[in-house]
């Protein structure tokens, strides 16, 4: 015979419908969101992974100054690779952005057509979908480059540009000001051929099986190539941010979402746990009688655990249905809002189902059975006597009678509900952390932008491009090239100041290895105001990212070689735009054996117009430096609203449920105080004010904890997800906002609670229970 107790379940559900509905909604929404995310993420990761084969994504690319000769190509291909031309030309469009033009690729890095059609005639263009979206371009629109105009016929995703990095060294991709596009072969040849980049993709004849082998193969290939041709750039696939960034990011987001789900589930499980404890207290007599009549503890545990588990299961199922249908699109949209991903097909994700259905039920089972086992361990007699304390009778905490009765009353309410308030604290911490994150990111980005503007080294940094002949040709060739170079790069601009530069890489560790620009600065520089002498300064971004202090030593390495350099840091230079190192020009030229007169560029506060354009490699101006904040704003800006909304929802639900429990627990006392003649307002001041006090204290305590946690999380996030550095800056206003959001949420809940107090009937006290 089935336990007759089960008949209570629907009645319990009916009598506590509001509570169960709230928990159910929160579960379903969280699970829907996470399940939708995991399905979208899983399907997109699959699409992304499959794209390597489907679109024959390159194993790497290299760039040369001149077109490879047939012999050179054949020589390179002897190293078991196949070489494909993947030339491009970059041109500014009239909308202020830069587009990299390609011919259609037929063999390697193939193009995924997302909408419309590929260009067939002259004057037609297919642009990257993401870039088009960010620049409000649609099929049929025209884009202009100089005098040439192209009509957009299609929106595409280039398989080797899932993240639109203009340069592989860039801190962040930029899908607003940078895009890729395909034009017909004829139109490509009609573009400005001076800017033609001899970019080649390579594909290994036999793909490496492991990452380690891939690295080794890349190293060997580079060595082989340098014997054949002078390389301007050499980037194996695993170092190519345009290809790898998306995959890495999707993987890390997944872990974060799953963690979010489990934390929400654990909080809800504890909320249920407290509800159950309350029920056990209320039903102590019944439990004692049932136990005395022969019901086992296990039967009662199963009984009291049934509803939370059933609610979780239904919540998980509804959540999963919503996830697979509605939320999947929303979540996929979030990725499509950042990355140029190819089309995807929804894939049934057994792991996602497991994580969003089975695991939440297990969390609910574990936490609640633990609480129930603990609560039901007392003897039947103790239950019958309502003596639920396992310890000897608790003594009352002494409170001075100098405190008014209302104050003491509130303190007693607080002492009575410590366990509720502890769970509330965890809920507040978690909700506040989400809120903190949601409020923090936009302000960090704004501050970063301002900071960069405030401490730029110079309004413009012109990084010159030394012709390859100067470095690698015969001595005579090299000398001639150098002479031409120095003539072509001289300027009359009065604000210009020469500097030399060299790039090294950091040693991979907690953060990925990244390029560090080492500046060699003139003595008494107008731009770098530091007493460099014989020492080395690191930028503030460097110091903050790698936790370097004056007196420390830093070690950097050559990018493609094993050679390492160690420098002692004398000071920190207030520059947040990049991870960089400063020393005197002499020292830099000497350290890297570049010759006394070597210089790599100019600092200048005005545009330099008299340098031969072909010698200008990069111009670092405000726009280039704020690329990161711009892109993060585009990628994550919208999501922050969602995060904030979710945080407020958690706040409301946790505070509502826990304060509801407190009022239910004290229903009899509330009823009694009503009989005594206390008004609803006075009773609210006793019970609601206690919780309000706790909420205020917990909100305040949570702030420094949030700050410490955010320091760790933000650091870890910045370390793992990007090169370069954004300093964590917390606008004090955020603390006020966090506090106010928490407080206002509580006030909204308090109004509901006030209604509840009003509804407590006076005959509650007349019931024959203690």
């Amino acid at each position, binding site marked *: 015979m089935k336990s007759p107790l089960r008949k209570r379940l629907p009645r319990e559900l009916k009598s506590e419908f509001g509570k169960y509905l709230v928990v159910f909604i929160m579960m379903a929404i969280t699970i829907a969101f996470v399940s939708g995310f995991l399905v979208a993420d899983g399907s997109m990761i699959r699409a992304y992974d499959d794209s390597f084969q489907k679109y024959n994504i390159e194993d790497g690319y290299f760039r040369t100054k001149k077109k490879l000769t047939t012999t050179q190509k054949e020589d390179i291909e002897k190293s078991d690779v196949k070489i494909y031309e993947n030339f491009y030309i970059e041109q500014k469009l009239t909308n202020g952005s830069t587009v990299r033009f390609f011919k259609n690729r037929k063999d390697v890095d193939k193009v995924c057509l997302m909408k419309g059609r590929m260009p067939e005639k002259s004057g037609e263009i297919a642009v990257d979908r993401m870039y088009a979206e960010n620049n409000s371009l649609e099929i049929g629109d025209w884009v202009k480059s100089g005098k040439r105009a192209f009509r957009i016929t299609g929106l595409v995703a280039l398989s080797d540009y899932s993240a639109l990095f203009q340069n592989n060294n860039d801190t962040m991709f930029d899908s607003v000001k940078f895009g890729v596009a395909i034009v017909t072969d004829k139109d490509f040849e009609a573009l400005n051929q001076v800017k033609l980049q001899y970019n080649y993709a390579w594909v290994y004849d036999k793909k490496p099986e492991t990452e380690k082998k891939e690295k080794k193969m890349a190293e060997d290939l580079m060595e082989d190539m340098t014997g054949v041709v002078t390389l301007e750039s050499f980037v194996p696939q695993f170092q190519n941010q345009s290809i790898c960034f998306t995959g890495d990011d999707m993987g890390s987001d997944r872990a974060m979402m799953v963690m979010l789900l489990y934390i929400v589930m654990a909080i809800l499980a504890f909320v249920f746990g407290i509800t159950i404890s309350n029920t056990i207290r209320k039903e102590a007599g019944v439990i004692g009688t049932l136990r005395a009549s022969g019901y086992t503890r296990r039967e009662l545990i199963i009984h009291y655990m049934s509803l939370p588990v059933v609610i979780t299961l239904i919540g998980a199922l509804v959540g999963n249905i919503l996830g697979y249908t509605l939320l999947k699109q929303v979540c996929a949209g979030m990725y499509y809002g950042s990355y140029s991903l190819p089309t995807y097909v929804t894939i049934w994700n057994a792991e996602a189902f497991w994580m969003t259905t089975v695991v939440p039920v297990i969390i609910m089972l574990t936490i609640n059975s633990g609480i129930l086992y603990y609560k039901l361990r007392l003897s039947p007699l103790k239950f019958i006597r309502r*003596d639920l*304390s396992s310890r000897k*009778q*608790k*003594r*009352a905490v*002494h*409170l001075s*009678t100098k405190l008014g*009765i*209302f104050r*003491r*009353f509130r303190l*007693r*309410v607080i*002492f*009575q509900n410590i366990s509720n308030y502890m769970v509330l604290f965890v809920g507040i911490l978690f909700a506040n952390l989400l809120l903190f994150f949601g409020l923090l990111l936009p302000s960090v980005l704004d501050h970063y932008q301002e900071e960069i503007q405030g401490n730029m080294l110079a309004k413009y940094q012109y990084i010159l491009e030394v012709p390859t002949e100067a470095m690698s040709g015969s001595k005579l060739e090299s000398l001639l090239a150098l002479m031409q170079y120095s003539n072509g790069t001289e300027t009359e601009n009065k604000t210009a100041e020469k500097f030399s530069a060299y790039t090294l890489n950091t040693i991979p560790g907690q953060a990925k290895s990244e390029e560090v620009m080492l500046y060699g600065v003139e003595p008494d520089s107008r731009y770098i105001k530091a007493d460099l002498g014989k020492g080395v300064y690191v930028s503030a971004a460097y110091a903050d990212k790698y936790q370097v202090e004056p007196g420390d030593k830093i070690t950097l390495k050559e990018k493609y070689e094993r050679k390492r350099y160690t420098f002692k840091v004398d000071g920190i230079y207030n520059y947040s735009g990049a991870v960089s190192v400063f020393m005197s020009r002499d020292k830099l030229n000497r350290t890297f054996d570049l010759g006394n007169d070597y210089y790599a560029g100019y600092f200048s506060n005005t545009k330099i117009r008299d340098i031969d354009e072909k010698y200008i490699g990069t111009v670092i101006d405000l726009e280039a430096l704020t690329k990161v904040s711009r892109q993060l704003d585009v990628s994550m800006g919208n999501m922050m609203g969602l995060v904030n909304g979710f945080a407020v929802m958690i706040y409301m639900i946790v505070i509502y449920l826990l304060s509801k429990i407190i009022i239910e627990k*004290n229903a*009899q*006392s509330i009823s*009694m*105080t*009503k*009989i*005594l*003649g*206390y*008004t609803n307002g006075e009773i609210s001041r006793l019970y609601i004010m206690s919780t309000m006090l706790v909420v205020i204290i917990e909100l305040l305590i949570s702030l420094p904890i949030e700050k410490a946690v955010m320091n760790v999380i933000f650091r870890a996030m910045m370390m793992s997800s990007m090169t370069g550095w954004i300093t964590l800056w917390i606008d004090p206003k955020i603390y006020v906002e966090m506090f106010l959001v928490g407080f206002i949420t509580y006030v909204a809940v308090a109004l509901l609670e006030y209604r509840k107090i009003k509804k407590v009937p*006076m*005959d509650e*006290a*007349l019931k*024959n*229970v*203690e």
Partner: protein
Amino acid sequence: MFLEIRGIKKSFGTGDSCVNVLKGLDLNIEKGEFCVLLGPSGSGKSTLLNIIGGIDGADEGSITIEGERLEDMTEKKLSLYRRKHLGYIFQMYNLIPNLTVRENIEVGAYLREQPLDVDELLHTLGLYEHQRKLPNQLSGGQQQRTAIGRAIVKNPDILLCDEPTGALDYHTSKEILKLIETVNQRYGNTIIMVTHNDAIKDMADRVVKLRDGMIRKNYRNEVKIPAIDLEW
């Protein structure tokens, strides 16, 4: 007349399951009188007490206390009425479990501008040594004494006692009755006590016997016996 009860009727439930608990009661109680409502279970005595206390409403009839009609009062006024005039003692004490003895009494004291002195009352109640204890650290008698303390600390005009000794043993019951008697004598409150213990009638000024929702007997007790001498 201090308290006038006229034609009070009260029923619970509807249709076939409708039970008429009070079937039209008339009763007068004078100020300072100790009135005992006697009767078996279901006779309507507790219901009558709750209606006098303003925590339940009558279907018909009126209750007037010093000229003020209860049924004309709004919820707010009723609250004020209880606050000013009433003290309540229940069989199950209904103490606030997370407040100490002293604090429970102070909850009552708060309601009056000039309540009785709490320390003095604690002595009178024999609870002074226990004032820092929580209700669950007390015996039944001590809990009931605390409940009495909470009720009388605001020196109410009327003290309503619903089976105050119902959960107590013989000796403790006598102690409590003695205390109530002392309160009545010392502070002059009107006391209405519901009980099914016939012996208690001997200590009352007025005895009202109820059965089936009707007053069967209503008389003044000419020869009162002190609580200490009651036997049952």
